[in-house]
């Protein structure tokens, strides 16, 4: 389907466009971000600085970007997909060689006013390019091996670069996000079955490689896996973070200890409480009710995205929306599973809640694309 077809039906134009925005989605995003502001205020000990204030500003900038992106026709973004992917790939290569050193991994480009994480850009660019690819590809060819290898390569190249940084969390997100778009596009089940089998094989290989000369992961990543498997082994050392996170989460109970009353948070037992582990603060201070409310908001965002995708009249919009929803889902699912001790600590932030500029801006921009697809749907 091409934009010519839009002429046949009604597509909102000009100043009417804002009326057709997916407003429930905007409200949900704002609500989630609001919870984030509250938690950042709390973990700073009842202070807007150093975390809440910049986060609010970034949210403002991100929302503005979302609206601007939403107003631009979706076919423009389809045409930009290859460009976005190419730029992201160049930036990824750039940090590989010139990136600042931070947290033991080369992840940032310092733009002066903010630190850009190309891996965040790539999460969206990859979904865009894959959606555009399947929009271009004749559906009958979707499952032909040659046409499967191309998107697989498109996924693997950035994944490997990210893995090399090393950023296990982002690698998982790229792999699973890209895979989800391919799955939605209709690639044959068999491919996914084989990949899952291969994945199991790879896990075995990773563990087998430990301690040998061809060791695939860094020692600290192995340690994280070990402590995931049995954190009680080393409660004061490597397993300390996850143990303390679970204590914070569990001790919240039904209703929590109250806003700013989380002892685990306030007394510094929690690690990285303003970034990856912020969910535990929420769970500690607002209990099961607060934590499940956030989960519900996230679920509603997914629901609205899926509904929007189902209503789309073209493959690009549909796949893009599904891919972005999937990426968003992976963010919070991996993060929550991580702090609850269901997954190793891989360093994935809680979307729109954790303190961090790149993730916030890129996610809101991505929802801008979802909104654009929603607005420019022929009705």
């Amino acid at each position, binding site marked *: 389907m091409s934009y010519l077809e839009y002429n046949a039906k009604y597509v909102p134009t000009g100043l009417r466009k804002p009326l057709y925005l997916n407003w429930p989605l905007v409200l949900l995003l704002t609500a989630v971000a609001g919870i984030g502001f509250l938690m950042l205020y709390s973990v700073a000990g009842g202070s807007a600085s150093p975390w809440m204030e910049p986060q609010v500003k970034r949210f403002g900038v991100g929302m503005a970007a979302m609206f601007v992106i939403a107003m631009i026709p979706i076919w423009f973004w389809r045409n930009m997909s290859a460009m976005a992917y190419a730029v992201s790939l160049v930036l990824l290569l750039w940090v590989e060689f010139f990136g600042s050193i931070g947290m033991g991994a080369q992840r940032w480009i310092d733009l002066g006013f903010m630190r850009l994480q190309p891996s965040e850009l790539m999460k969206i660019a990859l979904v865009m390019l894959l959606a555009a690819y399947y929009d271009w590809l*004749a559906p009958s060819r979707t499952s032909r091996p040659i046409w499967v290898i191309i998107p697989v390569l498109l996924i693997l190249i950035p994944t490997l670069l990210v893995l090399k940084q090393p950023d296990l969390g982002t690698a998982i997100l790229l792999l699973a996000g890209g895979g989800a778009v391919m799955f939605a596009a209709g690639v044959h089940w068999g491919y996914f079955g084989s990949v899952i089998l291969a994945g199991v094989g790879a896990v075995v290989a990773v563990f087998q490689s430990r301690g040998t000369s061809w060791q695939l992961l860094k020692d600290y990543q192995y340690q994280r896996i070990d402590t995931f498997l049995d954190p009680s082994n080393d409660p004061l050392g490597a397993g300390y973070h996850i143990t303390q996170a679970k204590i914070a*989460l569990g001790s919240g109970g039904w209703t929590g200890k109250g806003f700013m009353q989380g002892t685990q948070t306030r007394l510094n037992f929690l690690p990285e409480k303003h970034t990856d582990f912020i969910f535990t603060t929420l*769970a500690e201070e607002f209990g099961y009710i607060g*934590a499940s409310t956030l989960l519900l908001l996230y679920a509603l965002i997914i629901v609205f995205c899926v509904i929007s995708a189902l209503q789309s009249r073209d493959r690009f919009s549909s796949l893009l929306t599904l891919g972005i929803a999937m990426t968003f889902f992976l963010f919070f699912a991996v993060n929550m599973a991580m702090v609850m001790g269901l997954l190793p600590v891989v360093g994935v932030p809680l979307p729109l809640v954790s303190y961090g500029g790149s993730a916030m801006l890129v996610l809101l921009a991505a929802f801008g694309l979802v909104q654009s697809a929603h607005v420019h749907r022929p009705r």
Partner: protein
Amino acid sequence: MKRPSRDSGESLRGISRRALVLGAAQFGVMGVLAARMRSMQVEEAEQYRLLADENRINLRLLAPSRGLVFDRNGVALAINEQNYRVVMVREDAGDVEDVLQRLRRLIPLTDDDIARAIEEMARHSPFVPVTIADRLAWEEMARVNINTPALPGVQAEVGLSRAYPLGSDTAHVVGYVGPVSDFDLSRIEDQDPLLQIPKFQIGKTGVENKLERILRGSAGTRRIEVNALGRVMREIDRIEGTPGNDVQLTLDAALQSYVEARLDGESAGVVVIDLENGDLTAVASAPTFDPNLFVRGISTKDWTELNENPYRPLAAKAVQGTYPPGSTFKLATALAAIEAGVLDPEETVYCRGYVDVSGNRFHCWKPTGHGNMNLHESLKQSCDCYYYEICQRVGIDLISEMAVRLGLGQRHDLPLSAIAEGLTPTRDWKLKVRGEDWRIGDTVNASIGQGFVLASPLQLAVMVARVATGRQIIPRLIRAIDGVEQPAASDEPLGVNENVLRRMRAALDAVSNHTRGTAYGSRIAADELRLAGKTGTSQVRRITQEERDAGITRNEDLPWERRDHALFVGYAPADAPRFAIAVVVEHGGGGSTVAAPIARDVLLQAMYDGPPPLSAYPSNIRSQIETLQERIQQRIAPGSSSSGRA
């Protein structure tokens, strides 16, 4: 320009199907997350809450202040002294070495002190206060306080530490405290958490040890919230402990100090009993030691010195030392014989200087013999043959029974370390312990307090007290606990014929007031305060026949540890006894020349409640007494001035 393909509709339907599959998978995962959240936050919440509290709440114990010990007049014997110390917090100090060097100009610090402080600070978290100097003088403390602006991280603190104002004078009675040791922990049954406090001080000896539970009090608690690094964030609550109870002893501090001063240079034990109620007004052992050394942590040098001193300063000889009671035991032998009805006090026994008993010859101390002796004369002149004779009539078992009735051969219930039981031998005892039959010679030896008989100064004082009063005087050391008067022991009659006791007291009066009495030289001149008593000189070696033939070696010519023990038991005033005393001077020589004068001086001091006038002494020795009194006052002076300052 790509045309829409025909199959686009079908392809969109395909996407929709797959989208629903993906959505379902996502909801499945979210369901798992919600379930996990529920199980942690609802089902297991209690357990995690407990862990969170364990994380954040620390229980700290607050040591209660230890009860004080006073003498009968309220003079402090054990107090809690303010102890000034300087602590330093690394994180506030900045340049630790620089601050320490500045501190060094204000208070004396050795290189070792500084090195130790730096090392200790490096070992602990930066916010933990580390003690730099302890037991500072008030002036040093003030210097540090004035200069705090120049000493970042340095704080002056006040703590409490135990001190004994009379120092060595009460060391054996009051005892001392020291930090809990592993040995203490293994020995003590009580599980008081206070004992776990590092360097918590508990009583190690004497009253401090025996009345530990009363003096200690109970711990308070402080619940504090700590963060992940252990830094104290705030106090949650605080329950003050109960301070220990004060204890008032029956001791008379002034008399005790006097006795210690009087015993200077000797190795001796002295016990003074107030006959009204059995109060021990002085329990002195010499030489003594400074208990304050132990509180601070005694140096190896001081410890070795105390331990290797042949006079054994650490031994509480007054209650712990046992000695052959010598002639003082004759009181028990005579009373046993009279009570058994085998001796008439007026009956005379002829002393020719020795008695042969089943082939062995037993000598009187007077080789030429005393001639005809009755009870009165035999006690006054301390004739041995009289007792060699009468003991055979009554037998050892009855003698020992009487000795026990008089307070020997038993542990008196006093809160002191290592109270000796002594020994009042019987036939059964010898068979059981030695595996030998009792022989008549053993009885003869025992009759004059030699052989197997052993008694402590405390027991001897009780004996003479019971003879003096005819009542079953039971010694007591605790006068009041927490202001509550402790009941004196019941005042039962001794159960010995009062006429007999009166005769015996007349004889004891004669011992020091009749010209032929053995303690006549130690009499008290003031008639209404007359001293009565019995001397004793107990051998610590056997005198062979050859020695006897060659003339007995004078005590002064023997090495110290082979000289005789000098003993005296007595009371005063003779007509209305108020105080009883027992004096044992280890290897002191003769009871009449060494022990009796001590008893006289101490009893006079007790009766006058201070230094007695010279008129109380016979005129011929007054000048000699005057110099002695001066010497003693000088010896007492430094101790009393230091107690005044505290």
